[in-house]
């Protein structure tokens, strides 16, 4: 049974121009012990999906889904307080800009103290201080911070983004969550540290059996670190399947365009030649095209594309396109 099972998740909000559907019938399923990559350009609604799973969207947004299940429990049917109990304990989230999600007024050590699971503490009150220090030390070592004393004493602005991100990850795994949602964990981090963060996720996944939903805008990142990928465009799922299969043979023109847009080492590409790219840009939410939202930019678009394509399946590989790349069209 998948740990996280989402069918036809739609997220809408009311604007002066009428109701806008920012996320349109997205499907996701994450098996226990798996790393799933959710890929899409900015504005494709990947963060919204993450927030909907966590239940931290504001009242402005309406979330509806045929199925939004975590471990067999329907998340939408839960009351706010029941959901609050899942938040942070079962499902944890690492946010986009690490240094801005820490309190700038407070030392890292003090903030870490607040996030410890005190209900798991079974020592008498006079030994709690020591227990806390031990816990924090252990967690920081686990994420690869060696000089924990300096880190705990410093304020967030004194640490590099990579270190802040590691501290945040250490905080989130304090409760030993089963599902970790990482929302663009490496966009603001320097290149060398990005690799460390991904390695850390991999380690957590293998040693602690944490399932990870890795949200990123760069397809290059997910290639080596994930088992399955879901690609989103403008709030629609475009393609999902096993990472290797998608990289070998994408079915959807958008995935193909993404793969082609990054120049590859081993590919025979002339030096300084023009790259193949989709024309135009991502449409704004007020002016979404009907049917397949890639339509106006798609090189294979036909008249039929004004109808929203249905998700099709071919050997564990889902895609939503009327004219997949494997079929020839005249």
């Amino acid at each position: 049974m998948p740990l996280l099972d989402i069918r036809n998740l739609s997220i809408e909000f009311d604007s002066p121009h009428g109701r806008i559907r920012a996320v349109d019938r997205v499907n996701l399923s994450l098996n226990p012990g798996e790393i799933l990559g959710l890929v899409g350009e900015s504005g494709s609604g990947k963060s919204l999906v993450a927030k909907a799973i966590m239940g931290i969207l504001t009242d402005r947004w309406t979330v509806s889904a045929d199925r939004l299940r975590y471990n067999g429990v329907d998340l939408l049917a839960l009351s706010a307080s029941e959901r609050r109990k899942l938040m942070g304990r079962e499902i944890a989230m690492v946010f986009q800009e690490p240094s801005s999600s820490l309190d700038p007024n407070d030392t890292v050590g003090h903030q870490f103290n607040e996030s410890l699971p005190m209900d798991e503490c079974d020592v008498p009150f006079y030994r709690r201080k020591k227990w806390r220090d031990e816990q924090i030390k252990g967690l920081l070592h686990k994420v690869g911070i060696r000089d924990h004393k300096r880190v705990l004493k410093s304020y967030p602005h004194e640490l590099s983004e990579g270190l802040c991100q590691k501290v945040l990850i250490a905080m989130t795994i304090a409760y030993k969550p089963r599902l970790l949602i990482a929302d663009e964990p490496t966009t603001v981090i320097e290149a060398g540290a990005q690799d460390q963060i991904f390695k850390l996720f991999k380690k957590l996944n293998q040693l602690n059996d944490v399932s990870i939903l890795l949200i990123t805008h760069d397809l290059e990142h997910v290639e080596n670190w994930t088992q399955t990928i879901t690609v989103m465009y403008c709030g629609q799922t475009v393609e999902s399947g096993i990472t290797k299969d998608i990289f070998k043979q994408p079915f959807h023109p958008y995935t193909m365009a993404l793969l082609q847009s990054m120049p590859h080492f081993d590919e025979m590409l002339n030096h300084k030649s023009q790259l193949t790219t989709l024309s135009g840009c991502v449409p704004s939410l007020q002016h979404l095209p009907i049917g397949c939202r890639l339509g106006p930019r798609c090189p294979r678009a036909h008249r039929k594309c004004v109808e929203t394509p249905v998700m099709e399946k071919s050997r564990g590989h889902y895609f939503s396109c009327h004219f997949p790349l494997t079929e020839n069209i005249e």
Partner: protein
Amino acid sequence: MNTLLEVNNLTKSFKVGYRWLIPQYQRALGPISFNLEEQQTLSIVGNSGSGKTTLARILVGAEQRTSGEIILEGEQLEVKKHIQRCCAIRMIFQDANTSLNPRMRIGNLLEEPLKFATDMPAKDREQEVYSKLRQVGLLPEHAHFYPHMISGGQKQRIAVARALMLNPHIIVADEALSVLDMSVRSQIINLLLRLQKEMGLSYIFVSHNINVVRHISDKVMVLDQGQVVELGDAEQVFKSPKHDQTRKLLYTLGH
């Protein structure tokens, strides 16, 4: 090919504090020497803290060098000669979203460098803005828009247009591509390559995306702790890296 830019023994030191009332300096960069030829692209790669941003900032004049000389087209580039420098070397900033003034129209934004560095009449300035907008693939109508009315990719195009405004010879791009989305990034790469061919521009790229660097650059300079550890043709550096640091970089960046 003509040598466009020549940098000799460039260094930069920062004051780190005092010891017995004597100011203490720390060498952040250099000594660095390199040449840049016309229509060439030089990429600077390195870990964070290796001084690549400092070097880019010194070249555009946002930071003052401690010693060394920069020779542009056979002429010494003085520290204080701002007009000469800003006409020849321009910069594309990292984040187009925050580097455009939200209270100015795009036309006025693009007009500003012309106002400050030339004495062109208003009519010609307007024409110049329109032609530059066309060059980067936008329409003259975009001059009347405010930055929030256009998309992220278009904003980056505006940033490129602003760098092109004074017909520079060299454009310095400090991580200008890394924050962009994938499809927009390849559009901007295409645009930069096209402009290089049409206008004979030279680029200095600061980047950590090895795939992009390999595609667009002729020369690569690898920096480590302010020192050049490897400098040479891009293909050669990537195919047979000589220095350990280069190998490490290639490895950590996925290859």
